[in-house]
C-alpha cells in the first residue's frame, strides 16, 4: 500500500516541533542520550568494522600519504691483490686456511657491523641537526622521518634503517642498499658508505701490517743485543784466561801427552830388549833406560794432573765453559739471522696481502621510487588481521572446548 506523504508545508513545522522536542528530551534526560551513544559505539565497534577501518587506514597510509622512498644498490668485494697461500687468512679474523670467498665473507661481516656503528654515523653526519633536517618529518606523512630534537639512540636507529649491508656467502661480495626520501639522498649515502668501507679496510690493513713490521724489527734489535752480549762474554773469558781457545790448548796438551806416551812405549821396548841382552838386570845400560822410563811415567802423570786438576790449568772445565759460550754466540747469530729473515718476509707479505675494496657494481641515481615498502607494509597489515583471526579464533575455541 503506497504511503501518503503529507504536504511539505504542513510537515515542516511538525518536524521542527518534533526535533525541538527531542532536543529538549535529550537535554533533559542524559541517561537516554548515553544509551543512544553506547548503541552507536557498539555498532561501530564491531570486529568487521574495526578490521575494515584498520585495513583501509593501512591502505590509505601505504598507497596515498606514505612518502616515496628511493633505493640505491651497490655491490663490492673485499679482495686481495694476489691469491692467498694456505697460512694466510682474513685480515680481520683468525680463520686459518680459509678459502678466498670465506675470507671475504668474514671481512664483509666485520664491515657490516662497522658500517652500522655509531662511529660511521657520526663520521657521515657530524651535525645531528643536519641529519634531522635532511630526514625531517613532512606533512602529510607524519610517520616516517626523523623528528626534531631526537635523541642519539633514535638517530642511530633511524640511520641503521636507511642501510642494509648483506655479505654474500656464496660469492663473498657485499651488497649495500641505501634508502632515502630523495634519489640523491640514497645515492650520496651509498657512495659515502663505500668510501667508509675503503677507509676501514685500508686502515685496518695498514695498522695490522705496521704492527707486524714493528714487532719484527723489535725482534731483530733484540737478537742483535743478545749476540753482542754473548760475543762480549766469550771475549772476556778468553782475556781472563790469557788464551785464544781452551779447546785448542786442551788438544795441544793431549797431543803432547800422547807424544810422551809413545816415547814411553819406545823406551819400554828398548828396556825389555836390553834386559834380554844383559844377564844382570842392574847393568848400567839397563838401569839408564829403566830410569828414563820411570821418569817419563812420572812426567806423564804430572802433565795429566796439571791439565785437569783444579789447582793446575783445569783445561776440561775451561773447555766446557768455552763451548757453552761459543754455542751462545752461535745461537744468538742464528736468532739474528732468523729475525732478519722474518722481518724481511713480514715486510714483503704485508705488501703482498694488502686488501682492496673492488666495486663490482656502482650505485646509480634512482629514477623511480621503490614501491616495495608500500606492498610489504600493506600485506603485513593483512597478515596481522589474518593471523590474529586464525590464532585468536583457534585459541579461544580451544579454551572454550577444553
Amino acid at each position, binding site marked *: 500500500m503506497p504511503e501518503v506523504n503529507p504536504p511539505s508545508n504542513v510537515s515542516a513545522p511538525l518536524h521542527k516541533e518534533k526535533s525541538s522536542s527531542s532536543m529538549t528530551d535529550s537535554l533533559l534526560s542524559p541517561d537516554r542520550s548515553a544509551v543512544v551513544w553506547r548503541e552507536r559505539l557498539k555498532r561501530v565497534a564491531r570486529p568487521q568494522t574495526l578490521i575494515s577501518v584498520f585495513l583501509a587506514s593501512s591502505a590509505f597510509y601505504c598507497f596515498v600519504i606514505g612518502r616515496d622512498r628511493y633505493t640505491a644498490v651497490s655491490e663490492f668485494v673485499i679482495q686481495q691483490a694476489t691469491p692467498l697461500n694456505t697460512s694466510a687468512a682474513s685480515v680481520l679474523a683468525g680463520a686459518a686456511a680459509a678459502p678466498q670467498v670465506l675470507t671475504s665473507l668474514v671481512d664483509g661481516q666485520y664491515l657490516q657491523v662497522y658500517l652500522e656503528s655509531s662511529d660511521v654515523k657520526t663520521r657521515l653526519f657530524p651535525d645531528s641537526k643536519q641529519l634531522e633536517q635532511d630526514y625531517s618529518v613532512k606533512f602529510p606523512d607524519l610517520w616516517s622521518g626523523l623528528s626534531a630534537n631526537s635523541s642519539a639512540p633514535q638517530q642511530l636507529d633511524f640511520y641503521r634503517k636507511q642501510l642494509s649491508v648483506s655479505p654474500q656467502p656464496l660469492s663473498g661480495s657485499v651488497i649495500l642498499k641505501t634508502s632515502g626520501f630523495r634519489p640523491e639522498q640514497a645515492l650520496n649515502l651509498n657512495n659515502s658508505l663505500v668510501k667508509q668501507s675503503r677507509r676501514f679496510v685500508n686502515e685496518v690493513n695498514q695498522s695490522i701490517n705496521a704492527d707486524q713490521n714493528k714487532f719484527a724489527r723489535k725482534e731483530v734489535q733484540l737478537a742483535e743485543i743478545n749476540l753482542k752480549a754473548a760475543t762480549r762474554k766469550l771475549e772476556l773469558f778468553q782475556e781472563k784466561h790469557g788464551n785464544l781457545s781452551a779447546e785448542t790448548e786442551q788438544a795441544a796438551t793431549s797431543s803432547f801427552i800422547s807424544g810422551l806416551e809413545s816415547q814411553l812405549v819406545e823406551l819400554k821396548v828398548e828396556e825389555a830388549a836390553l834386559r834380554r841382552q844383559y844377564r844382570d838386570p842392574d847393568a848400567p845400560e839397563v838401569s839408564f833406560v829403566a830410569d828414563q822410563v820411570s821418569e817419563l811415567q812420572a812426567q806423564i802423570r804430572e802433565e795429566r794432573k796439571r791439565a785437569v786438576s783444579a789447582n793446575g790449568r783445569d783445561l776440561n772445565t775451561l773447555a766446557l765453559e768455552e763451548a757453552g759460550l761459543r754455542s751462545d754466540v752461535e745461537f744468538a747469530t742464528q736468532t739474528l739471522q732468523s729475525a732478519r729473515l722474518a722481518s724481511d718476509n713480514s715486510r714483503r707479505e704485508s705488501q703482498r696481502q694488502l686488501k682492496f675494496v673492488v666495486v663490482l657494481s656502482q650505485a646509480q641515481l634512482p629514477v623511480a621510487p621503490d614501491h616495495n615498502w608500500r*606492498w610489504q607494509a600493506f*600485506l603485513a597489515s593483512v597478515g596481522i588481521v589474518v*593471523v590474529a583471526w586464525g590464532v585468536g*579464533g583457534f585459541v579461544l575455541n580451544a579454551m572454550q572446548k577444553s
Partner: protein
Amino acid sequence: MIFFQRLFTAIQRQVAIVLAIATYENNRKSTASSIGAWETIVGPLQLILFFIGMRVGFSLLRGSNRFAAGGTSDMYFNVVMFISTGFIMVFLFRIVALKALSGLKLRAPLYYPRIKPLDILMALAVNDFRAIATISLGIMGLVWLFTWSFQLDSPGLAFVVYMLTILMAMGFGICVTFLSNLNKWIVRVIKRLIARVLIFTSGIFFATFELPEYARPFVTWNPVLHSVELFRYSINNQYPIPDISFNYLVCCSMLLIGFSLILYRTNELQLLEANDD
C-alpha cells in the same frame, strides 16, 4: 554495480558456509579427544620438537664450525627457528594435501546441498592453517623472547608465501584426489611420497645454499622448498637463496589451483561421497 554487489554477497555467504563447516569440524574433533581442540597442535608440535632435538644433537656432534664450505645456516638463524620455519610450511602443505587424499566428507549427513566438497576442503584448510599459525606464532614468540631479537624483514612476503602454500596444497590435494579415484594404490604411493620425499627435499634440515651447486637441481624442483626458503628469507633478508624463485612458487601455486579448479568443475560428482554411513 549490481554484479559486484551480488558477487560480494555470494562470497560472503560462501565464507560463512566454510567457517561454519570449520567450526563444526573443530567441535567434532575436540569432543573426540581428551585434550579437546589442542589435539590439533600437539601432533605436529611433537614431531617438530623431535626433529629440533635431532638437529641440535647433530650440531653438537659436528661442532660449531661456522666456517665450513660456504658457511652454515646458523649464521642466519637460530637452530630452533630454522627447523620450525621449515616444518611450518611443509606441515601446512602436507596436512592440507593429505586431508584431501583421505576423502572429503564430514562424517555427518550433508543435509544442506550448498555444502560442496570444495567447501569441506577449504574448511579443513582453515582449521589446519589456524593450528599451524598458532604453533608458528608460539615458537617464534618463544625464540624471540629468549634471544630478545625480533626480526621479520619482509612481513608482506611472509604472508604471501604462506597463502601461496595453502593454495598450492589445496590445488595439489584436489588433483591427487581425482587421481586416487582411479586406483587405491595410487593413494598409498602418493601418501608415502608426500610423507617421505617431501620431508627430505623441502629444506627442513638444510638450507639450499649449504648444498653444492651440482646437488641443487635434485631438490629445487620441489615448490615446497621454494616456499620454505622464501619464508626464511622473509624473516631474514640476508639469508641467501640461490636457485630459489618467487615466480616459480607463484607459477606452481596458480597452475595447481587453476588446474584443480577446472578438474573440480568438470568432475565434481566424483568427489561426492555418501556420508550417511
